[in-house]
């Protein structure tokens, strides 16, 4: 699927909006209806070999048909609104699919080496996934009010795991997994990326780096590598895979922070 397919669908929705709600249309864009028609036709030409082309053409034809033939203004507005909403929603659904398949990697924003990666890298990633999930599930035994979403995509980034409360207003917890945390530089970078990924999640959001092998030295000093304003909301969780426990009670601080937040809210 091409991005142009998504764009064309969204523009057809916008074109329908221009007919039934011109004020909302002006709020949204500077384009004229004529310019919008040209853009849609231009995009359709670029996707005529796509499987969705027939659907796109049908939506345009339906739009034209309603504009020409509808019997009353109320009926026309209803039908145009329906076209607008369905086209936009479908565009968003396709956009999510597009991004999950060829999104960030296709734009060169990430590693760029996946296609040529050796098999051993896949195996390492698999271990990464396994330890992440084991560590998170161990944490959820102490935080049963949370549910976990793995590989959560948000703003061009993928967060390894997002923990969200099922019922109450507890803070969200964003978790990144690092197999090894041996250098200060690596720890600092890991926290920096996690905090960046967490922009937009609200001021109560908590951040955790889950690791299976930190150096002893770093365990005592990692907090100095975190910006002061984020220290109270940032946690290093050291997970012992063999014992299925968090070593040196590293999860206690996070659990305490959640409980304290809930008490303050109550």
């Amino acid at each position: 699927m091409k991005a142009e397919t998504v764009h064309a669908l969204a523009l057809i929705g916008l074109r329908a909006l221009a007919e039934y709600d011109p004020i909302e249309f002006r709020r949204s864009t500077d384009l004229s209806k004529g310019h919008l028609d040209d853009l849609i036709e231009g995009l359709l030409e670029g996707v005529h070999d796509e499987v969705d082309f027939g659907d796109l053409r049908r939506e345009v034809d339906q739009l034209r048909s309603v504009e020409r033939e509808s019997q009353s203004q109320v009926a026309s507005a209803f039908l145009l609104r329906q076209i607008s909403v369905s086209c936009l929603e479908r565009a968003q659904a396709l956009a999510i699919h597009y991004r999950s398949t060829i999104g960030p990697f296709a734009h060169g924003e990430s590693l760029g080496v996946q296609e040529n990666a050796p098999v051993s890298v896949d195996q390492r990633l698999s271990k990464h996934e396994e330890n992440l999930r084991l560590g998170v599930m161990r944490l959820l035994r102490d935080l049963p009010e949370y549910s976990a979403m793995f590989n959560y995509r948000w703003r061009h980034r993928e967060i390894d795991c997002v923990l969200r409360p099922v019922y109450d207003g507890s803070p969200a917890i964003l978790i990144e997994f690092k197999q090894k945390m041996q250098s200060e530089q690596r720890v600092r970078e890991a926290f920096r990326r996690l905090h960046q990924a967490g922009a937009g999640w609200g001021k109560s959001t908590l951040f955790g780096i889950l690791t299976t092998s930190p150096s002893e030295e770093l365990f005592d000093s990692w907090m100095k590598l975190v910006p002061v304003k984020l220290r109270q909301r940032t946690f290093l969780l050291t997970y012992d895979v063999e014992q299925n426990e968090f070593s040196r009670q590293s999860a206690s601080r996070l659990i305490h922070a959640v409980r304290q937040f809930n008490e303050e809210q109550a």
Partner: protein
Amino acid sequence: MSNIEQHLGKRFGYTCQPWLAIDIADRHFAATYRVWFSTSINPQQNGSSSNPLILFQELDRITYINDFNHSRIDQLKTRLANWISGSALTSGDVADLLAEIAAAPVPAFRPQLWKIDLRNIHVSRLINLGQFPDEYQVRDLIRAEIEVLVP
């Protein structure tokens, strides 16, 4: 009458913007904002979605209780998606942003309340939207022209 203050007879404009709209404008539109505003913080004759105070109160509560089923969130997602679709961005960026908007968590819609100094804005940039008596639009606002009242 070269500035908006002289044209409307009001010194300030007020608007309420969700964080995600600001963030997208910062990243993709060189921190140039397409905003509606009213000349009163609580314009009684405007609808709720064009009343900065009511909108702020509503979004503040929605994000506080994480009310992901609220119709205001759907409305804002639709508005953001329409804005992006009709912008000059490439199809790739449009597709990326539509996905981002669709998947945005409720806290991404936490509100900011802005005050706009109308003395600094040329009247040619003013758009009268015409739906409500006190609702206008500026399509190229920059940071220097606003003051964030409530971040």
